[in-house]
């Protein structure tokens, strides 16, 4: 069932900018339109581009913020999230912990 919802209306996660827009809803309580505009501005793309795989794949690869496919050496997980936190100027709990642990 979740697959049906995702295909019908989802932003596509790592295929697009779905995770990034989700972070803005979560960390800054932004509603959807504002969250999309914010992310689009940070990425330097249009709101329409956020779900365009042709735009988002090379952009995500260039920024090192995680890809949907298993590209060898590409950032994923906590490394990608650290870059996402910096890109979006947000606090991500797991990233803060990661950085505290590295600082020790």
């Amino acid at each position: 069932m979740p697959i049906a919802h995702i295909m019908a209306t989802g932003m596509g996660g790592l295929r697009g900018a779905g995770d990034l827009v989700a972070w803005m809803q979560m960390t800054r309580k932004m509603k959807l339109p504002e969250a999309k505009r914010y992310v689009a501005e940070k990425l330097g793309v249009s709101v329409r581009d956020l779900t365009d795989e042709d735009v988002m794949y090379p952009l995500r690869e260039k920024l090192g913020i995680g890809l949907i496919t298993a590209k060898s050496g590409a950032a994923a997980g906590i490394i990608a999230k650290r870059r996402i936190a910096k890109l979006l100027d947000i606090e991500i709990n797991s990233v803060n912990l990661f950085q505290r642990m590295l600082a020790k």
Partner: protein
Amino acid sequence: MRMSHTVFTRMGDGERISIEVGELREQLRKGTEDASNKGSVPQLDAAELEALCDIFCEPGRAVSVPHGEELIVTDDGVAENLQGSEADGGAGIDLGVLSSLLAYERSTAADTACMGHEDFSFKPVKAIIDYTTTTYYTASQSVTVPLFYGAQPNLGLYFQPDGPFPNPADLLPAGKIAEARKAQEDAAEALRSDMVFVGRELNQVGCEGLNFDTAGSSGDPDFYATLQAVRELKASCPAMPIIVGMAAEFVLGMHGEIFFDGQRLAGMFPHRQVKIVEAAGADIFGPAVNVNTSQTIPWNLSRAVTFVKETVKVAEVSVHPNVGMGVCGIPMMLQTPIDCVTRVSKALALIGKADGL
């Protein structure tokens, strides 16, 4: 655009039916009217009802939103479903939590993911908190999308025979109202304490988000404990976002005299639930609108969109309606039909203006 005079749809229990377009419009009208009467919210207007009618008349099995109208999909542990049991629609594949989460993230292109206890309640998590925090931490290092930890308040687990407190289900029929209320108050305090404990432990390992799923399932004391826990956790763990998803459209007054910030919780519908959840500090709110299995899906979905639209209108946080089986227009069955699921998705996105699902 009408592709035929007869439309294929379903009943709330999933049974396939065919109805004339005229009857479809009547079902949609009755559904929004019911929501308006019950919840004292505005009905959908003529244009919205016609848009909803168009969605049902689309000939495709699956329907979708236009480009640019996409929203965020969150979940309540569905991300682990590949390795879960049928109770949650799981596939029972012996994958392990991390592999399930990564498979969900990569193969379904999910915007977020959520993990939790197989029982998916806070009470059992407390006993295995070390395992929980270790598993979460390990997963959070590899998962790239936001990773929530989800659990249900499930106040019912605190009543006898499952828990220590007298059961109001036994006390109320015996006319012991005061005793039933006391039992619920005491149980709610224990629940609050457990939820705060679990939340704080998860925060220590960098929990990216906590999902309180099906809040209010045991009525107003269940909802009260949730609101208290949210407020406490937002104060002590400010970097941990919180979702509160409801169990039902109406907070059942099992106690009846419980107030939060001066507001009686019993009787609240989604457009009021969201305001009290915002006041507690939550970052995302998930309303639930119960499906009536004796009514058609058009009736149910029109009803759900009516409630959701008003909730979104008054909300200051993102609204992610619950769209699992039996809520917000999804038929009450394990294998939810794609024709209904995608129509619910589209309607809530385009007409309900939801921020997510």
